[in-house]
């Protein structure tokens, strides 16, 4: 039997790949509690990777899509609406499926796009890995959900603020940056917190059926399922992964709460919006 320190050394970085720990995952009767604790905990780094990058990139894309959706030009608002409808209306699970099947069909060598003076080769090989392809799907998904939240917030911006901005002679980008955007963020932030939490939770779906875990390097829930398959005992691995996710959720709530405080710092205390953990949907 391994000691706890040995399993930490062997398995904590193992989710990065074979080079970072034992070649093989623990099997059968060889599995100790510490193995489960550290391998699942190590797998959490991929959950954090997916969540941070998807939320970080999706945030900016969502701002853009939300602005497109509220614009008066139908050439902008219609595609944005269709995008949001598609990604909010279909299960994330199916989206992973769909995109993985699509990525597999792309030629491995890359796609050549002739631009006249030169030929651009788009690398497509990485798209069939979860770390790139799965992240891509997650980004699109969170963009759609957050864009819908931002649209609601954009429509709820107090008219007086916008008129005041006009009166001050602000227009165009200056008005957006100084008045519209901070107001939108302030109004959308409590629900955006829930969106971030839910996105973090749905990173568990990445390896579920579509994207393969190369070299058995997967996220926390992938390892939890692996242990349950091996030990046929769901009462250790699943509660462990649940505990990790509760901890992660608390971290997100605290972090986003700090941002929320900053966004609302100009308001009197009773008008500030509190963050409430109210996830309204699963994917």
């Amino acid at each position, binding site marked *: 039997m391994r000691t706890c320190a040995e399993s930490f050394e062997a398995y904590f970085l193992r989710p990065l790949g074979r080079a970072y720990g034992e070649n093989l995952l623990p099997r*059968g*009767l060889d*599995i100790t509690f510490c193995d489960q604790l550290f391998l699942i905990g190590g797998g959490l780094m991929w959950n954090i990777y997916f969540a941070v990058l998807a939320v970080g990139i999706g945030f900016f894309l969502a701002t853009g899509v939300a602005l497109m959706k509220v614009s008066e030009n139908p050439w902008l608002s219609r595609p944005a609406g269709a995008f949001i409808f598609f990604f909010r*209306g*279909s*299960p994330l*699970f*199916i989206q992973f*499926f769909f995109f993985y*099947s699509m990525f*597999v*069909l*792309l*030629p*491995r060598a890359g796609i050549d796009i002739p631009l006249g003076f030169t030929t651009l080769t788009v690398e497509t090989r990485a798209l069939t890995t979860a770390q790139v392809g799965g992240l891509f799907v997650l980004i699109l998904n969170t963009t759609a959900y957050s864009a819908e939240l931002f649209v609601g917030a954009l429509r709820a911006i107090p008219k007086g603020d916008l008129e005041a901005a006009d009166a001050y002679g602000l227009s165009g980008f200056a008005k957006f940056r100084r008045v519209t955007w901070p107001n939108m963020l302030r109004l959308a932030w409590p629900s955006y917190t829930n969106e971030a939490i839910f996105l973090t*939770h*749905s990173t*568990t*779906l990445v390896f*579920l*059926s579509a994207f393969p875990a190369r070299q058995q390097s997967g996220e926390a*829930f992938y390892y*939890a*399922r692996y242990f*349950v398959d*091996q*030990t*046929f*005992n*769901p*009462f250790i691995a*699943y509660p462990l*992964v*649940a505990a990790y*996710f*509760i901890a992660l*959720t608390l971290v997100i709530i605290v972090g986003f709460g700090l941002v929320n405080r900053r966004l609302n710092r100009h308001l009197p205390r009773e008008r500030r919006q509190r963050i409430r*953990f*109210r*996830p*309204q*949907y*699963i*994917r």
Partner: protein
Amino acid sequence: MFEFCADPSILPDWQWFACYLTSGTHLAFYRSFFVVMLLLAIVAPLALGMGLLGALALRSSFAPVNLLGRGYVNLIRGVPDIVFFLFVPIALGQGIEWVLHQINCPDWDQPVRQGNDFIVCREAKMPPVGASAWARNVYAFSMACVAFALVFGAFVANTLYGAMRAVPHAQVETAEAYGMTRAQAFRRVVLPQMWIFALPGLSNIWQILIKATPLLFLLGIQDVVFWARELGGAKTSL
């Protein structure tokens, strides 16, 4: 299915398609839609019942019950739901077998968990040894229903709890002034009126439930996703 399908190679296009779309796999695919609808029809009332119980627990002034309700709702919302979808069927299955084992085989002297095996006596197996494939499917399906009802019950509980609090408090006070007990006031005033507040949330949850049905596939049930994969899965790779 059609008689002209005996030799598809000589058929014109539309007949060939008719044959293709009525092949055995396709028929199973169409049937699987009913499986999903059956799940929805079963889970919706179950989840509503769980939700009502949960909301009552949340409202309860008796501390342990209140704590139970809050624990239930917050635990399910704080953890990815997929964990529950995989955890509940296997945990419940082992739990049922363990209970049956204790009842049927009291003189069994070996431990139930030996290493990585979960061993119960022959009489305690669920579904019973020798059960038909159909019975096994029904068993797996009902496990899935329980998992869905548990997860969605937590969502419903939260919605109903909010709806109950949205009923104007003055009305409850009036009911009590008329001499109704707390239970009577709840039954006659709060319960009939809360639905109007709960309905938007419930319709939301209903949509979520529809969107969550592909997860049935993960529980080993041959649902729409399973057959779609059978039909559309890549047979070749570049």
